[in-house]
């Protein structure tokens, strides 16, 4: 097992580089895994489905998606450059060798491999009873499988279902069948088709009518195995009048090879229901030359199906070598509301092409977009957003604000808004700004008694605060620290 790079010698130059000290999640867990041979075929998919003891309709869905996927070409419209991915050089299933996660068996903590527990402790996620986070129920996904959940009793009492998607397929097939692919059909795009064919695990959330979920729900994704893809599938259904706050966090070890992550997340909100979905994404970014890192190709979409339903996406994107991600809202119900709040930080050779789509269909639907991009080093940070108002969406309103902050002379930021309005009563506003953090700003703040760290923190918090306020408190503290840490050494 290769050594954690962070511990190999000291940085040679006096300037400590970002990845030398900052990616503290770069370690690899020495755990025995069962990993499928590389390659993708109908055989592999059948094997995968069999492994998970899935009902026939799931296999059928996978195969249909696969047959569609093979007819597609990888999209090239995003402004990201990366080596072409050979999808036959990836493994599509990797699981820690133990019983859990396979048959939807009970997942008490005693069943979890101590190495895994240690991994999550090291990631700052204590799983043991006494240390467990109060007020947050967690699901942990390690490579291809979900390895443990917390607070199951409390959730059960309220009728909230929070389990891995594999378990949901076994236990609640009728709900999964009804909603799987209902927001993101497998025909949606290349990566969604791929995910639909080979998705391994992810979370399933069902909030019954009128229930305000008593705790925040959280999933933590960890890619460990080498040359595997993580294809998680998350489905959140909020019934009439319900509410849920859902958080997800992600890390991956530091490896020279690329890792592939192609998730699909579907949210469905019924009448008067509200889903708040927050992400702090900190996948490994690759080294300063741009080697390694995670390719993050994600399709996230929420459907405001019922009237006056609300869905908000809040994301802090600080990791991945390449990000291709557009959490979107389909505003179907009258008076429904969608929101997208995003902070995206890129450094070194990272490339992020991210943004949102707001599709207004129902009457008097409303959407808000607030995007903050921070671009440092040689990185490229692109906001790409679509606001579409259909002929039926009388009285639709949108407000978009996209701000970019550039650090250093070589970083790039780009804002690409697409607006399509087919109803003359719609009001669509777009504002954009670009600013640059300069040595002079930092000197100015330091000459007022603030150390470098504090100065950077003030600048970044000032820039991002409107987004951070939409994160749940603990997440917001974590996000602030994460961004500060990442920025500290790339400024000045």
């Amino acid at each position: 097992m290769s050594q954690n790079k962070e511990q190999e010698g000291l940085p040679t130059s006096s300037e400590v580089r970002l990845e030398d000290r900052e990616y503290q999640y770069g370690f690899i867990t020495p755990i025995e895994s069962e990993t499928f041979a590389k390659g993708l075929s109908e055989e592999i998919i059948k094997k995968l489905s069999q492994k998970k003891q899935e009902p026939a309709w799931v296999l059928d869905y996978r195969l249909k998606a696969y047959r569609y996927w093979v007819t597609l070409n990888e999209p090239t419209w995003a402004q990201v450059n990366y080596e072409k991915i050979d999808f036959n050089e990836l493994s599509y299933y990797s699981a820690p060798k133990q019983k859990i996660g396979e048959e939807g068996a009970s997942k008490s903590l005693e069943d979890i491999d101590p190495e895994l527990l240690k991994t999550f402790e090291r990631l700052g996620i204590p799983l043991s009873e006494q240390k467990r986070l109060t007020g947050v129920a967690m699901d942990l996904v390690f490579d291809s499988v979900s390895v443990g959940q917390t607070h199951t009793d409390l959730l059960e009492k309220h009728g909230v279902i929070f389990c891995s998607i594999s378990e949901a397929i076994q236990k609640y097939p009728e709900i999964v069948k009804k909603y799987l692919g209902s927001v993101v059909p497998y025909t949606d795009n290349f990566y969604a088709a791929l995910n639909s064919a080979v998705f391994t695990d992810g979370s399933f959330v069902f909030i019954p009518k009128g229930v305000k979920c008593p705790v925040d729900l959280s999933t933590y994704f960890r890619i460990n195995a080498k040359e595997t893809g993580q294809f998680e599938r998350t489905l959140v259904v909020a019934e009439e009048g319900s509410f849920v706050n859902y958080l997800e966090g992600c890390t991956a070890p530091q490896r020279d090879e690329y890792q592939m992550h192609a998730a699909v997340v579907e949210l469905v909100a019924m009448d008067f229901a509200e889903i708040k979905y927050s992400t702090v994404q900190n996948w490994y970014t690759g080294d300063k030359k741009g080697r390694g890192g995670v390719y993050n190709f994600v399709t996230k979409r929420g459907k405001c199906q019922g009237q006056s339903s609300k869905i908000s996406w809040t994301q802090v994107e600080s990791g991945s070598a390449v990000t291709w991600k557009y959490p979107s809202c389909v505003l179907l119900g009258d008076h429904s509301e969608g929101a997208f709040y995003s902070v995206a930080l890129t450094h070194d050779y990272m490339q992020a092409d991210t943004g949102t789509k707001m599709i207004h269909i129902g009457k008097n639907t409303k959407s808000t977009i607030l995007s903050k991009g921070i671009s440092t080093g040689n990185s490229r940070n692109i906001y790409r957003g679509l606001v579409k108002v259909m002929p039926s969406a009388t009285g639709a309103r949108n407000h978009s604000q996209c701000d970019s902050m550039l650090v250093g002379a070589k970083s790039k930021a780009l804002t690409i808004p697409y607006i399509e309005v087919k109803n003359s009563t719609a009001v669509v506003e777009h504002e954009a700004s670009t600013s640059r953090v300069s040595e002079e700003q930092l000197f100015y703040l330091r000459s007022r008694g603030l150390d470098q760290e504090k100065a950077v923190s003030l600048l970044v918090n000032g820039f991002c605060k409107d987004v951070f306020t939409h994160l749940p408190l603990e997440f917001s503290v974590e996000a602030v620290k994460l961004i500060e840490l990442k920025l500290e050494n790339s400024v000045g």
Partner: protein
Amino acid sequence: MLLNVKNLKAQIDGKQILKGLSLQINAGEVHAIMGPNGSGKSSLSKIISGHAGYEVTEGEIEYEINFKMKNLFELEPHERAQEGIFLGFQYPVEVPGVTNMMLLFESYNAIMLRQGVEPMAQDEFNKVVQQKAEFLGIKEDYLYRGVNVGFSGGEKKRNEILQLLVLNPRLAFLDEIDSGLDIDALKVVSKGVNFFKNKNNAVVLVTHYQRLLDYIKPDFVHVLSDGQIKVSGGMELVHKLEKQGYDWL
């Protein structure tokens, strides 16, 4: 003595700017430094604040901390500020997203922390700031705007003086605090500086014009030329410069 600059030589981008500058400043004094463009006036202020662009090649700067003269070069820029050195910028920098009040609060408490004094609570602090802002004729809503963002030249300078009054340093270097000011703004800025100065602190005015010195009376006037102080004196020197320019040096 508060500040002792001894034979300071410094360069920026390989270009020699200061060529053996010496200057002593005591508490309770007001000094004016005049001189032609490019003589090194602004450079001196920036070196004292610790701007990273300058390389000191020779000489030393001592600064009094707790009754002892300390080597200023051993302190980081923010530590110098925390020890009571303030630089009023010729071109105050815009800092979007950070409000004036936030900056003042963070700065004030960073200084207090260093001095071992209890930090002030935000509410109490806001009142102190509002009072000083009112004294300088700064409208309250300016306090909650981004630092210097969209401010006119005069407003920026006034904002520097507000910081001066709130942070209450022991040594204030004010770099061309009068440039770009109309007469009313000049009066307000001068009022602020005169209110600030007392027997325990020192003010250094870097300026081109007599005008400022009509409002703030210096005890010492120095003429800086070609990286050195060529001549020192009192107000009579200012009058001579106004009449004859710098050619006689």
